[in-house]
């Protein structure tokens, strides 16, 4: 039996290729079942108008039972959006990437959630503990134990 993760990702990929991504989300790279890249853009009226950010997904073999590692790309001149739940190193504090992850969620569903997270933002600012976190942050955001305290933005 091919691993669940490879089978699932190939299905997701073929679905993306045949049906396309939702508006504002584009698949950039999916050469293997380890790392995928998407660009994400908030459509319509928002604080992030005209900004295009790159989102990186990293999968391990336990996907989709456990969540993928998702973060914004901050290398090669790319920037993470300025948002109270996004750290300047690209790490994202979102409960669906942590304890509220469910195996029925998909890559596209995560993209859409993050897109709406940006769209509903009222004020562009970094998380309060940004500097402290970024200084000691692990490479993989899944190793961070986030405390989800605010679901308004």
């Amino acid at each position, binding site marked *: 039996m091919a691993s669940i993760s490879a089978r699932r990702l190939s299905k997701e990929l073929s679905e993306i290729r045949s049906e396309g991504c939702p508006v504002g989300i584009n698949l950039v790279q999916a050469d293997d079942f380890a790392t995928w890249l998407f660009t994400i853009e908030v459509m319509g009226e928002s604080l992030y108008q005209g900004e295009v950010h790159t989102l990186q997904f990293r999968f391990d073999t336990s996907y989709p*039972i456990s969540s993928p590692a998702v973060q914004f790309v901050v290398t090669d001149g790319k920037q993470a959006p300025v948002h109270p739940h996004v750290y300047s190193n690209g790490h994202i504090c979102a409960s669906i990437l942590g304890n509220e992850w469910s195996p029925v969620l998909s890559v596209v569903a995560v993209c859409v959630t993050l897109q709406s997270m940006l769209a509903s933002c009222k004020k562009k600012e970094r998380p309060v503990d940004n500097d402290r976190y970024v200084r000691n942050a692990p490479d993989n955001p899944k190793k961070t134990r986030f405390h989800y305290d605010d679901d308004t933005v």
Partner: protein
Amino acid sequence: MSSDYEFSDDDGDYYVDDEDMIDGTQDESGQSDDDMDMDAYGDDFKVVPKGKRKSYEVDYDSLSQSAVEKLINDDVEHICGIFGVDASIASLLLRYMSWNKERLIEKYMDNPSAITVAAGITVPEPPSPSAPIRSGPSSATQTTPTARRPTRSSTSKFPSFGSSKSTPSKTPSISPAQPFATPRAAKSEPFVCPICFDDSPTLRTLSLDCKHAFCSGCWTAYLSSKIRDEAEHAIRCMAEGCALVTPDPFIQSVLVPEPGAPAGDPAEEAENAATWARFQELVVRHFVASNPNLKYCPYPSCTNTVSCPSAALKASLITVVPTVSCGARGVGGQMSQSQSQPAQSSLGVAGREHRFCFGCPIESDHRPVVCGVARMWLKKCRDDSETANWIKSNTKECTMCQSTIEKNGGCNHMTCKKCKHEFCWVCMGPWSEHGTAWYSCNRYDEKGGVDARDAQSKSRASLERYLHYYNRWANHEQSAKLSLDLYAKTEKKMEDMQITSALTWIEVQFMKKAVEEVDKCRMTLKWTYAMAYYLAKGNEKDLFEDNQRDLEKAVEDLSELLESPIEAENIPALRQKVTDKTVYVQKRNEIVLEDTATGFLDSRWKWNVTVDGFDDPEKSDN
């Protein structure tokens, strides 16, 4: 005063037991049955007859995992009887309420649907007038939940799981009908598992009452990950935002194939069976952790539980030292029950019984001192503050290069070894200002010099007091670490004895027994020093230290005997001496433990510092 203790009314016991001991060891003629003798041997040295609890011991029971499962079952059945629900539902409700039956009953009577929703048993539904309590036992007789089942009727409040919680070997109510299977025939389009996107028509799909269907492979992977990696005992449905919790029969049906089912990969099946066993252990652990009367044995891979209601309350820990043992010995696969193999396997660490303190995790047996004081003492010993204290009271810094200097003699004219700076030890000023009259310093700064000396000697006195107790404590700690060597040496001696004399292996056991006793008493002695350090001055402390001294003397005498060379001709004499001493040491140890424990019960001990849970020493002095 101390003599009152030595010749107290316990003496009757002493002589009686002494005779017992002689009976057991001198009866050299009729020892043909070795096994029986081994069993009887351990009892010969018991000073107090079995059955009578000593004041320094606590009442406790050792429970195996199956015994705890029985307790769980009793609770579950109780709830089943009251609520008229299935065992698996009762079990989920109890787990949700941390096994607090009273609160569960209260809450359930108050609002049954709220609690079943909160516990993840039923799907939250638009309010319906029918209360699930009325569904009663009929829920058990309900048919296979189909995807199309109307969810309005009151009977659908509970999913229809079998009641096979405690019978992991068989799955009576599940096997025939596969109640969790989601019938695909009823659906118009072919089923595609939303997780692995597998659409093979042979796929076995399963869902809870929420109708979120997934293939069995995904369920297995999910449950295994939750149980193995996250040690979760309440596993929710895989669907996003769904709060339903998988009941035990469901987990079992996923992980353990039904009898007669086509055989899968044997390695995988074994893995899944282990996961199911692990899940059952997790439930037991949750039950034990929720019950203050119970504690899981902390030894690696031991699954026993100890029940000790008398030490369950934190307040009781100031009067008792709840040293307990789960009854097993050894580590991992080599564990054995101590009842079946008494003294034989206890040499060395591997065969030690699983002894631990019910009240604290600091050390397995810190009798006679209570947890709070033991903890304080260990913290003090660990803190570097004492080292700093020593440095402060014994050294000064060179005013030039800041090197730490300890003055161990000579005059006040100091020359720093490192930077060659010359200064006066008293005023710390450069020596050049003193000229040849070194005492001029004294006269110049008389008041300050006296003050400084006073402060220094005070600090030194408290430090010396601490070091006095610490050194003795550490000495016994060190001896305990060396006890492994001593065990090995003693075993060698016992072999020598067998060769040089006509004694049998059984008859030379007295050596081993003596070593064990010395080891045990050293543990007691060790902790008496921690206790004495904190005891307030007074008659009680004097008595305590008298008992401590007597035990220490007896232990050292016995240790010396054990170390003495063995000569063939005086083995019988040595044997007599060692056995006598062993019994005496045992007796002294009993006295220390007994007296200290009684003291805690009578709150006789007064401390020189504030100890958690005890009266403030300042107040009680007045």
